[in-house]
């Protein structure tokens, strides 16, 4: 079964993948800090979508697609056009390179992210495991 991106089901599927990933759990065992991924509209997607991913000590306690007024104040926000997110999820754009070139706009404690490059890579690996309907 494929999950529409972006959707509540998709981000929950990512949360489940992370919780099942021993590699993510070990690489992020000290991590604390939730993310909001913002998919901005472009030629292929007309709206702005907000996806919350909670991350704590190698686990994802929860995830949801929210309306902007429902968003909690998270430590990290990453914004990019829909097409850019698709490139990241399909493995065509390395997320660290994406942030370094400004294609993904990261707001938050950047030093902290750079101390967990493997965890970031594992999140993308887990994304790739989700059957996605674009």
């Amino acid at each position, binding site marked *: 079964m494929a999950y529409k991106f972006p959707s509540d089901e998709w981000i929950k599927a990512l949360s489940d993948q992370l919780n099942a990933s021993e590699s993510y759990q070990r690489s992020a065992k000290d991590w604390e800090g939730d993310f909001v991924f913002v998919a901005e509209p472009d030629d292929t997607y007309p709206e702005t979508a907000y996806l919350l991913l909670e991350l704590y000590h190698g686990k994802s306690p929860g995830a949801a697609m929210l309306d902007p007024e429902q968003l909690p104040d998270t430590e990290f926000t990453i914004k990019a056009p829909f097409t850019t997110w698709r490139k990241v999820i399909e493995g065509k754009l390395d997320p660290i390179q994406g942030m370094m*070139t400004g294609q993904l706009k990261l707001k938050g404690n*950047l*030093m902290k992210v750079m101390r967990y*490059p*493997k965890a*970031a890579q594992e999140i993308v690996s887990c994304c790739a495991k989700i059957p996605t309907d674009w």
Partner: protein
Amino acid sequence: MWHFVSPKIIFGESALTSLEEISISRALVITDHNLIELGVVEPALEEIRKTGCEMLVFDQVTPDPTLEAVDLGTTAANEFQPDWIIGLGGGSPMDTAKAIWVMYERPDLVPAMINPFVELGLRQKARLITIPTTSGTGAEVTWAIVLTDGENNRKMGLGNRENAADIALVDPALAVSMPPRLTADTGLDALTHAVEGFICTWHTDITDGLCLNAAREIFQQLPVAFEASQADNPSQRRYQTAREKMHNAATCAGLGFGNALASLAHAMGHVIGSVFHIPHGRAVGLCLPYTIEFAARGEDPSRISLLTDLLGIKVSNSNAGESLAAALRKLIREIENPLSLEELGLEEKEYNQQLDKLVDDAFNDTQIITAPRAPSYEELEKLFDYVFHGQPVDF
């Protein structure tokens, strides 16, 4: 979309004399006290004096530079108010110079905040010249800053594209007196940069040529440069040529990997170096054959096959990774460097006590993200074991 960053590079015989063409009022030279004592940096200091500028030398940099050294150097900069900062020496003084420069221009930051995502707004007070005395770390042309977090015994990978030097002076005269171990270790560092910059997942069309040429030159010239470091007559033409070629190749490799990235051998070598206090080049060079063998057994060994072919290395048993690793081991033997941690003299008990930290820290080293074959924790632990025992990788 990616970026390519390079200082202006002035290279070759008498490159140091170009200092007189730079308008310098106040030069803060960042270097290592031992280099001054040994006279290694005197040719550069003499050329700086000739410019007529006021000069202050900060010589408290040590191998594996620490945050404390950056702090002291920044204090010196704030008092002296230079318009040029000059990093003179191996990777340690040059990286320390980069960090001091950033702190001098941005007193609101701490070194740990120097990362690629922020705008630093440098060049308001000073600019940076880098002058390498080894062949080498490539730090003269990279924007990376590697400091040591003494408290956690861990390397800190910092840096921002803005803090790449304005000018790099690559004069082979500064490298000719390198003793054998330094010649071998820094040469291996340069080779590892070249190889990893080529095979890593962040390689680019623009960096490939630099990495390939550097690797080709180093395979040919490092044994000769090593011989030169022990020769009774090091001024023989072929020795001088080898020294110059190595010096240029290290800069090429620096430009190549500095604009791509290093990879798994560096992730492993960083942690081996910081935990067991092994020189950087010796550590990464030691790991390289094993990481090549490991990557060659992954889903896509094409970069390794291509590199092996372009280097003219004969492939036996249709396994380019094994052939490249064998060529690397042969070179490492020629320059009398160790091929395993055991051979290096590390006790197995001490190694086993640190294994969890080795794996964890290597896993969270930024260089690991470009590994052509990403290891699992179990595979990385096994890889460290093979590196310890000197066993060719077979998984």
